[in-house]
């Protein structure tokens, strides 16, 4: 194979994967700090501020602490699955990042054209759906392998919850897909550019369904029933400690970022700046003079950050749903609502395009 082909097909993707993994791990670590800081702000307390300036080195200290912690495996646990479960839960979370477009315009380095996403497949969103639903295996197996009652209860809850909310989540995604006419992640953003609006406007119902289901899928308050520290101690990861616990934790935060990224891509125009068709606002792409890809990354990151903030805000405000109420909400409200949205969207599109 000639060297150019080798670099284009092996080296550059490998570097891109490495960069995305690295940056995302850092982002995930700092999301935990963001969470603690924002919650601290909401709850009138200081949050971490000992390690580094205002606690900015806290995630690193946390990581070191978790690494050095004693790693306990319960006596009667299924050792193989117990060790495997956190890995199983974190891999799909990261794998979903493969098709997320972080910026719109590609740039060239040493004559090689580099796209700011790992890959762009025409079934991008379906790939994410299928991959991310694997995450529940980690939780299930973790709860099961612990051989303990609280984790088992937690993982059972989690399985039911994931299955229930996967359905409205999938249906909510169909709305923007219909509007865009493609399942490719970059294609969806481009469609929003050409149609001159973010899909958030026509698909507000879908966004609502998507975000609620997304919060439920990531097991966050008010849907954090699999952990539910008040009822189930810590739910499925009760028996986990040290780095294995950290893996579950990181998986949760990675999933938050993934859900936010998808919401950004589908409903908020991905890398596009606000009002992408209004020329007067083009100064918003102020990072263009360094690299056109950078302003895309900036806007993308900014929107993801807004979603993460919303996540944390919700956590600071709401109590936790009860199990049966959670099921009611999913099956009796979100499912019909998202289904109706698909029908109405399709109907309007059919009318318009004859």
């Amino acid at each position, binding site marked *: 194979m000639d060297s150019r082909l080798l670099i284009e097909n092996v080296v550059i993707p490998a570097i891109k994967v490495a960069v995305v993994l690295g940056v995302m791990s850092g982002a995930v670590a700092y999301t935990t700090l963001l969470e603690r800081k924002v919650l601290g702000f909401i*709850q*009138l307390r200081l949050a971490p501020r000992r390690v580094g300036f205002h606690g900015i080195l806290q995630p690193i200290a946390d990581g070191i602490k978790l690494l050095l912690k004693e790693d306990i495996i319960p006596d009667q646990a299924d050792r193989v699955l117990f060790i495997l479960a956190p890995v199983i839960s974190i891999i799909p979370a990261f794998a979903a990042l493969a098709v997320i477009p972080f910026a719109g315009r590609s740039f060239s380095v040493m004559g090689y054209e580099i796209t700011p996403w790992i890959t762009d497949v025409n079934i991008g969103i379906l790939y994410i759906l299928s991959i991310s639903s694997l995450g529940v295996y980690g939780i299930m197996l973790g709860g099961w392998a612990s051989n303990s009652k609280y984790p088992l*209860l937690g993982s059972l809850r989690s399985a039911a919850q994931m299955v229930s909310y996967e359905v409205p989540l999938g249906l909510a995604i169909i709305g923007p897909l219909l509007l865009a006419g493609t399942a490719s992640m970059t294609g969806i953003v481009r469609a929003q550019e050409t149609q001159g609006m973010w899909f958030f406007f026509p698909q507000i119902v879908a966004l609502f369904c998507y975000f609620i289901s997304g919060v439920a899928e990531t097991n966050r308050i008010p849907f*954090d029933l699999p952990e539910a520290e*008040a*009822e189930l101690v810590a739910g499925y990861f009760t028996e986990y400690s040290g780095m294995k616990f950290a893996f579950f934790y990181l998986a949760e935060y990675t999933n938050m970022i993934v859900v936010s990224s998808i919401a950004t891509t589908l409903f908020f125009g991905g890398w596009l700046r606000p009002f992408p068709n209004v020329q007067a606002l083009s100064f918003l792409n102020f990072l263009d003079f360094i690299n056109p890809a950078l302003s895309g990354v900036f806007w993308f990151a900014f929107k993801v950050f807004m979603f993460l903030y919303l996540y944390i805000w919700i956590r*600071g405000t709401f*109590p936790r749903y*009860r199990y049966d*109420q959670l099921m009611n909400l999913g099956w009796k409200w979100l499912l019909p609502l998202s289904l109706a949205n698909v029908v109405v969207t399709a109907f309007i599109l059919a009318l318009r395009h004859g």
Partner: protein
Amino acid sequence: MFHTEILEVNMGPQHPATHGVLRVILGLDGETVVQCKPVIGYLHRGVEKLAEHKLYVMIPPLCDRLDYVGSASQNLGYIQAVEKLCGIQVPERGQYIRVILAELNRISSHLVWLGTHGLDIGAMTVFFYTFREREMILDLFEAFCGARLTTNMFRIGGTLEDFPPGWIEGTRRFVDLLPSRIKEYEGLLSTNRIWLERTKGVGVISAEDATNWGLTGPPLRGSGVNYDVRKAMPYAAYDRFEFEVPLGTHGDTYDRYLIRMEEMRQSARIIRQALDGLPGGDFRGKVPKKIKPPIAEIYHVIEGPRGEQGFYIKSDGTEKPYRMRFKSPSFVNLQALPALSNGALVADIVAIIGTLDIVLGDADR
């Protein structure tokens, strides 16, 4: 081949939501609770027996440590029982100071309850808000007597001290501030859809059942039974003040929540009246050096933050009590847990334990 089994789960003694070392043996059919059996005794310290080996004046600190969240009420109840036994008169100013401190303590106890009850149901932020206000009360206690939690503020015949300078103004500031802060909690909870769903219709008990179970305090009044020791058998200076006893109608968790919220407002009202009408004179009356009650027995009840708090003392004429028994509201309220959790889900159990507002030190003694 297929069959179902009742899963037996131990909730506690170490569990984040059992409010201390309470063990509840749960029989679960899926998420539904089919059996619920509270087990107590993990914090038993034999205080009643210990007290029989101590002089009357040495016992109040022990009482404080029973219900460490509402220590002023415990203290007050015991001391009034001894005073009744010996026929000791307390000057008016002492009575007023007692009422003020006991009501402050009621507010702080309800704040702890609200915060932890919120945590049980998953509302984290309320906890930090309530502890902010509780801190102000504890600061007032600290200014009064030096201690914050187990305060031991009352003495036989009166109180430990008179109010230090600036204390009354500080307390006024606090009671003026409190209603707006209560509004803040209610803004987070009272109209919150999830909170309503989690508390309405959960742990319902009828007025008749509540009476039969011997419930006291907010759990009893939540079912609509109008019984408050402060009104029924006024002690200290409670008959001098105007206040209302909030009553519920449904007897569910939400009603008990509303009642405690209203009780905090009423407590602030009592404190304000007491501060306005604070009489002059001594804060402590004439008390013999040696407390030596006649041969007699006495049972005295007061309204603690958790409900009716009873103190039984049997004296044999010596300086130490012959027998000493406490009736704790936590204990009698906890009895009703199996009855309240009829058909509940796991998540309801923590809500119900929270709404009973138990302190295990009080239940176990």
